[in-house]
């Protein structure tokens, strides 16, 4: 009944490379499933490419257009090379979240190690992009415009901190939302079982209350699963746009 038990990582195939544990785990398995599903939609939908798309093809095209619209509406045509990256991020996180909603599965996006790694990739990519594109001029980013000189000693550190806090907020937002949602579902689900087993018939009746709550929360969690993937992709695009244009 431990609500955190669902986050345990279980080794499926133990692998050890020079003292480092890189075992194939349930986390890796569901990453594989999520990526496989995403590729199944994208490549499967593009197998019989027809002018009037079927269901799978529509899904593939809509996914692409959804992400490309986010990219182009923020960055303009400059963002074109980043569409595949943002699409990969969005689909990987979205499918990780959605597949995690199936009972007895594992949600790899509920682990800080995964979300932090993804956020660090975004952060480093955006930073290098800014440096490559603007050279040393990139650092003027930390000097806010239209601020009195007297306030600069305060503002510049704030700008720098807010820049370096980006990967933290990006990763914690996703991990915390997913973990909290899943923990809550488990806790309320536990209430139902506890009442039913401890109070007999009355327990069944009272248990309807948390059951109704769990049903609502599951719907909400599907919404969160989408929203968090969307927010991650959107913030990535905003950071890319920020690096492309500085201000």
């Amino acid at each position, binding site marked *: 009944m431990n609500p*955190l038990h669902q*986050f*345990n*990582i279980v*080794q499926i195939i133990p*692998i050890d490379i020079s*003292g*480092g*544990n*890189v*075992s*194939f*785990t349930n*986390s*890796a398995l569901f*990453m*594989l499933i999520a*990526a496989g599903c*995403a*590729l199944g939609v*994208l*490549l499967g939908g*593009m197998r019989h*490419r027809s*002018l009037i798309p079927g269901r799978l*093809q529509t899904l*593939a*095209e809509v996914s*692409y*257009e959804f992400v490309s619209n986010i990219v182009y509406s923020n960055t303009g045509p400059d963002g*074109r*090379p*980043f*569409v*595949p*990256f943002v*699409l*990969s991020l969005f*689909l*990987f996180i979205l499918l990780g979240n959605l597949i995690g909603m199936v009972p007895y599965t594992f949600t*790899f996006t*509920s*682990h*800080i*190690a*995964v979300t*932090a*790694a*993804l956020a*660090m*990739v975004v*952060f*480093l*990519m955006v930073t*290098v*992009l800014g440096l*490559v594109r603007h050279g040393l001029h990139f650092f003027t980013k930390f000097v806010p415009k239209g601020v009195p000189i007297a306030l600069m000693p305060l503002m510049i550190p704030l700008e720098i901190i807010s820049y370096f806090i980006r990967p933290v907020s990006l990763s914690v937002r996703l*991990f915390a939302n997913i*973990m909290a949602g899943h923990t809550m579902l488990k806790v309320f689900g536990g209430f139902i079982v506890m009442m039913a087993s401890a109070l007999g018939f009355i327990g069944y009746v009272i248990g309807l209350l948390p059951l109704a709550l769990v049903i609502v929360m599951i719907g909400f969690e599907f919404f969160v699963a989408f929203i968090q993937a969307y927010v991650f992709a959107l913030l990535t695009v905003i950071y890319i746009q920020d690096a492309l244009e500085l201000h």
Partner: protein
Amino acid sequence: MTYSVPKPRLGWLLGLAAVAVLIAGVDHQALAEAAHGESQAGLPQFDAAFFLTQLFWLALIFGTFYLIVQGVAVPKVVQMIETRDALISHDFKRAEEARNQAAAVNKIMEDKIIQVRDHARTILFLASREAEHVTAARLAMFDARIAGKVRDAEQRIFYARENALREMPDLAGALAGEVVVRFCDEEVKPALITSAVTRAIAERRAG
């Protein structure tokens, strides 16, 4: 349709770099210790024993996934969408052209209708004028003919009257002679009767 596959190799290399940095940052000593046991306490998310494996498989799976999306899936989708867009805009252009063509043909037809109508109106006008002329000529002819006939008839009437008037004194004289003989049983000289009748007729005419 030309489509060049975008080649953002940068992002992928950065991904590898990021994972490499993170892996290097992991304390392998602590990791190995944690793997041997006391990993049940606290959140599984903060169990450092499983950081490396997650990063390793994430890099492998997400990296491969990204490469396939970028290299295969996105070009296919983009090509599909661009093909469709090009076709749709091409169809729109053709529809626009057809519409313009139809409008031009319609304009020609309307012009022709106006022209033909004007022509018909002219013909009608000429025809009615001609008809008027013909009618007028005929009427004039008939009038002349009727007038001639009337004149002839009047002349005949005039002659007939003149004749009648010329013969009247003799006839009236004879008649008067007879009447006198009947009533008076006496012969009167015809010259006397004739002059009396003539005088009476003249008096009548004057009166």
